[in-house]
């Protein structure tokens, strides 16, 4: 599903975010990407999503070589990948329904179809009755579940989550992790970047350890 081959990423500040990483994440795997702050977890996910380009090396995601993917193809590639972030990244001025179906709105999907799609996806996280609520009316856990719904609406083959429980209390964090495991059980490859050791020990999954931009343990 994801293959990094001798990937190095150096930012303009000359800091090595990732150094010579070679790792493979297989389809249907549930994978933790861990390490302390500055280990390169977020950079790893940005590279896998095509938001950043590696300084050297090759990256293959869902069978596509990201070095050769064109700007025109990039959006269609991204639609096969769901992304969840620590800060939820919901638009405060838009309802849950509008947040979840943002992409479909821009694809010209009919309102009736969008409502059905949103209802079905929000039902997976138990928020089908909050469609007309605004993000500020929801708890942190609920906001993250909305963000997960938004990530799932295109039925992605790969879900990338960057510190998805970072802003949540332990109970809500566990609830979110259970949702991720359910998503994984339905066949989606899930990669969760976290530095929370409790989550890693509580939930089963492969653990890839990064440290100062280097691969410490591929977890295989």
């Amino acid at each position, binding site marked *: 599903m994801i293959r990094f081959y001798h990937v190095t990423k150096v930012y303009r500040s000359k800091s090595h975010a990732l150094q010579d990483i070679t790792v493979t994440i297989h389809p249907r795997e549930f994978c933790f990407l861990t390490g302390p702050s500055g280990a390169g977890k977020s950079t790893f996910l940005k590279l896998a*999503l095509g*938001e950043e380009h590696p300084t050297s090396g090759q990256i293959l995601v869902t069978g596509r070589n990201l070095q050769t993917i064109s700007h025109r193809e990039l*959006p269609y590639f991204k*639609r096969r990948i769901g992304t969840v972030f620590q800060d939820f990244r919901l*638009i405060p001025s838009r309802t849950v329904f509008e947040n979840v179906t*943002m992409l479909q709105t*821009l*694809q*010209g999907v009919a309102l009736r179809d969008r409502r059905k799609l949103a209802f079905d996806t929000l039902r997976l996280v138990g928020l089908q009755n909050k469609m007309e609520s605004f993000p500020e009316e929801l708890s942190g856990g609920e906001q993250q579940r909305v963000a997960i719904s938004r990530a799932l609406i295109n039925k992605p083959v790969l879900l990338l989550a960057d510190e998805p429980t970072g802003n949540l209390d332990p109970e809500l964090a566990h609830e979110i992790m259970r949702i991720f495991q359910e998503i994984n059980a339905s066949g989606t490859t899930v990669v969760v970047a976290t530095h929370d050791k409790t989550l890693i020990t509580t939930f089963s999954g492969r653990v890839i350890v990064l440290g100062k931009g280097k691969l410490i343990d591929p977890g295989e």
Partner: protein
Amino acid sequence: MMGLFRLILFFVQEGFLGIARHKTLSVFAIFIVSLSLYVLGFSRYLTSNINNLLTSWEGQLEVRLVMKDGIDEEGIRKAISILEKDPQVESTKIISPKEAMEFLERLSPSLRALSFKESDNPLPYSLSLTLRKPVDVNKVRVLIESARKIPGVEEAIFDWEWMDKLKTYSRFLAFLGWLLFAALGVASLFTVTAITRILALSRKEEIAVLYSLGATPASIRGPFVMNGILIGLLSSILALIFILVTHLVIRRTMGGDSFILLLLSKEFLTFSDQAALVAVGTVMGGAGGFLSLGSIHDWRYSRFAG
């Protein structure tokens, strides 16, 4: 097809929302853009009125040939047969000394007191040549030169210089209008771009999320381009209203005092000119909206969120 229609409808809705969210900035942009469109539209208004005036005067242009004293009717007919072969000549009319005197007397009644006898009439025969439209001044010059060589012709008269000058002024006015519009247009484009960019910056997180979800650059740009189009559209409507007000003010207040002003404000812009002005405004606004975002890749989350 329905999907595209829904998408455009969404862009329009978002465009209006953008204007509503940033009322002061949008009103400022509309004012600046309408100013440049006013300059363009008003110069077009003036030049089209001048051109209409010239066209109507051009239709009345004629060449007058003064015949030599003592020429008989046979000599005049010979001259006419030569002149009617020229493609510039539409028709000819003989003006007898008597007709010429009657015309002069109408212009200046005091001449009647002199009461010339027909035999004393000092005026010669003349020929009035009506020219074929559109009148080509250069070809008429050639016609006049050759007419002067026709036996029996004393002089050929054609008052075209003032018309030529007016045409030059009209062209200069149109050029000046475009020049001013170009300068103000750049300022307008910059204004729309800057204001739409401010609008985009206030929604940078939304753009970044859409980018990460896999929205195409065109669909991300859509609401901002539409915002620019709406600013351009409203500006052009405002500019048309300003031009109409100017037209009415000239006609109703100033026109009475000046015959020239009355002639120059005879007609408002034609429908096609109005449509062209709206199109120019809309395209300018759309271009500003398009340019405002630059490369969509630069709006990815990591650019501003670390």
